[in-house]
Every structure is written in C-alpha cells, then in structure tokens.
C-alpha cells in the first residue's frame, strides 16, 4: 500500500472535492497518494531492485546529534511497499461521547440502507466508479468524528480501489465501528 502522509484536514478536503467533482477522481486520488495498481507495482519493483537501506533522518536519543542521511528512492519505494505501517503507535481515537447521538443514528441508518442495497446489487453489478466514489464520500463523517484515523481511511480507500476489499466488507467494518460507538454512548448516558 502506498499511502502518502496526510493530515485529517487534507483528506477531508480531498473527499469534499471528490463529492463536488466526481469526474476529477483520478487527479484527486492521485493527490492523496492513491494512484491505483500501477503505482503499487512500481513500488514493489523498485524495492526488489533497491539499494541498501539508509537510516531515517532522526535525532538519536543517546547522543542528541541529528543523523541526517538522504533517503534514496529505493528506501522511499520500499517504505511504500510496506504500506502505512509506520504510524501504528500514533493512532488516536476521539472520545465516544464527542459524537452527537442523533448524528450517529443518522449515519448508522444510512449505512444500513447502503449495505442492504449493496447486497441486492452484488450479484448483478461489479464495482462501479459511482459506488466507489460514494464509499469515499461516506468516509467523511466517520473520519471527521474521529471514529477512524486518516491513515485507516486512506488504506481503506486504496484497498477498495484495488478491489482487495469489497465495498460490502468495508461498509460492514464501518457499521460495526459506528454501532459500537452508539452502544458505548448509550451506556454512558443511561
């Protein structure tokens, strides 16, 4: 997976752009680092052919001296192959109580309707640009409300784009997260 490091605002803006101009999806997805199958293949080839790994520029904890080494293209490419794995430790989830109950209910209902219609359509249609766009736009609210991280949203978009995760599975995962959030919130308020 080749996710460009984005801020939450960057991704939300990109999703809004896609919502307004679905025809620009190639450009918009490219800007957020999701270029599709071709780019991933190129990354893998570069990594296999790549030079030795250079240390990442950092300030050492022991000496306090910054060790800056220019990252070669191969390093960047191999990092792309590994995916957005670098920020495991920094994912943060916003407090459940921050989300308004009615808004959550609305989000959950919309998701339920979409899941039902997807199940119906599954046998007769393949993945279309329209329903892929609809999925990306749907991510806006869970992302804005901190239910998923920017990195998770990016990776999900990419996996759906590549056809490695079905829309149905992706929606179900989101549905579970939103439903769970409601349960916790109900427990707190009751």
């Amino acid at each position: 997976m080749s996710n460009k490091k984005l801020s939450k605002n960057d991704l939300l803006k990109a999703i809004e752009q896609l919502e307004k101009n679905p025809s620009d999806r190639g450009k918009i997805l490219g800007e957020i680092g999701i270029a599709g199958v071709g780019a991933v293949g190129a990354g893998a080839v570069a990594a296999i052919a790549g030079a030795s790994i250079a240390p990442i520029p950092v300030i050492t904890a022991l000496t306090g001296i910054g060790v800056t080494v220019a990252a070669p293209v191969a390093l960047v490419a191999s990092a792309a192959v590994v995916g957005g794995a670098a920020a495991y430790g920094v994912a943060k989830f916003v407090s459940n109580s921050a989300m308004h109950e009615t808004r959550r209910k609305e989000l959950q209902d919309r998701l339920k309707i979409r899941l039902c219609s997807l199940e119906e359509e599954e046998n007769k249609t393949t993945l279309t640009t329209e329903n892929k766009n609809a999925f990306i736009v749907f991510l806006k609210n869970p992302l804005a409300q901190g239910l998923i991280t920017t990195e998770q949203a990016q990776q999900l978009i990419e996996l759906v784009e590549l056809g490695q995760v079905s829309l149905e599975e992706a929606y179900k995962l989101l549905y579970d997260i939103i439903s769970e959030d409601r349960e916790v919130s109900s427990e707190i308020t009751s």
Partner: protein
Amino acid sequence: MTTSLPSQGQANLQLLLWNKSAESTSNDDLYIRIQRLELPQEIVSQLHDLTAKIKEISGKSIRIGKIILIQLLDFVEENLFLVAGIGAGVLIGSAIFSLMVSVPFIGPFLAPLAKVIGITITAAGAILGHELDKKLPTIGKSLREVADTFFKFFSQVLMVLLSEKQDIQTLPAS
C-alpha cells in the same frame, strides 16, 4: 473521557488493514530487508520462518507471523541508530521482549526466536532478558521503553481481539 484503547470494530478494521498489507508484501521483499540487517544466520532463519505463521482471529485467517515480522522490521529500521555498533539483534530482542510481555498469545510464535536471541521464558511464564541486560546494562531499559511505545497500538489491537475470543470461550452454554 478520552481513551486511546481501540474499540472492537476499530481493532477489526486495523487487523484487516495489517493483514492486507502483509498479503501484498512478498516474502522476497521481507527476506531482503532481513538480510540488510546483517544478523546471525540462525536469527535470520527464525525471522523468515515467521512468514508462514497463520492464526485464526475473529473468524478469519490472519497472517499473524508476517504482520509481526513487518512490525519488527519497521521498528528495527526506524531505530537502528540507537544501537550503532551493537547490532540489530539487540533491537529485535527488545521488540520481542516488549511483545511477549504485552501480548501473551504471541509467546508461542516468538518462542523459538526468543530462545535464539537469549530471552528466557521461565516455567512460571515470566520473561527474562538476561542477554539483553548483559549486552546493554545501561540502555537496555530505555531501549525496552522505546519498544513498548512503538508496539503500544499494535499490542492494544491484538489484546482487544484476543479478549473478545476469550469472552466467547468462557461463556456458559445456556
């Protein structure tokens, strides 16, 4: 109240993302990354063996060994500067120590590797890092803290998914 602990759904999502990332990473790529660390051959061999380990979590087959290996390699590559002149083996040792302490179910997967590196698991289940402490008497502890921080989210996700499994197993039949 703000909590950093992922929910069940969030943990499931994250595991799916890690698993997909593991599936799309070739074993050859990982082997090249391992070779670059210039580790003793027996550690290389144990690390590479991880790529074949699969575990069922939440009803799905998860390439847990490969996921752990990618995490280990990310950790070592990010922190190699910490042990300049000592070697990547010490970093791997601190990572394994951290993972085995925080996620008990990982123990069986990592036991052969831990043995080669010199981490001792006592009969009572306690984990002792004798070799690590011998090699790094002064910075061994801080290195383990670096590892704990790096693997915190990873450990939390696995623990959330594991606790769900345990709950199901301990529920009464009625």
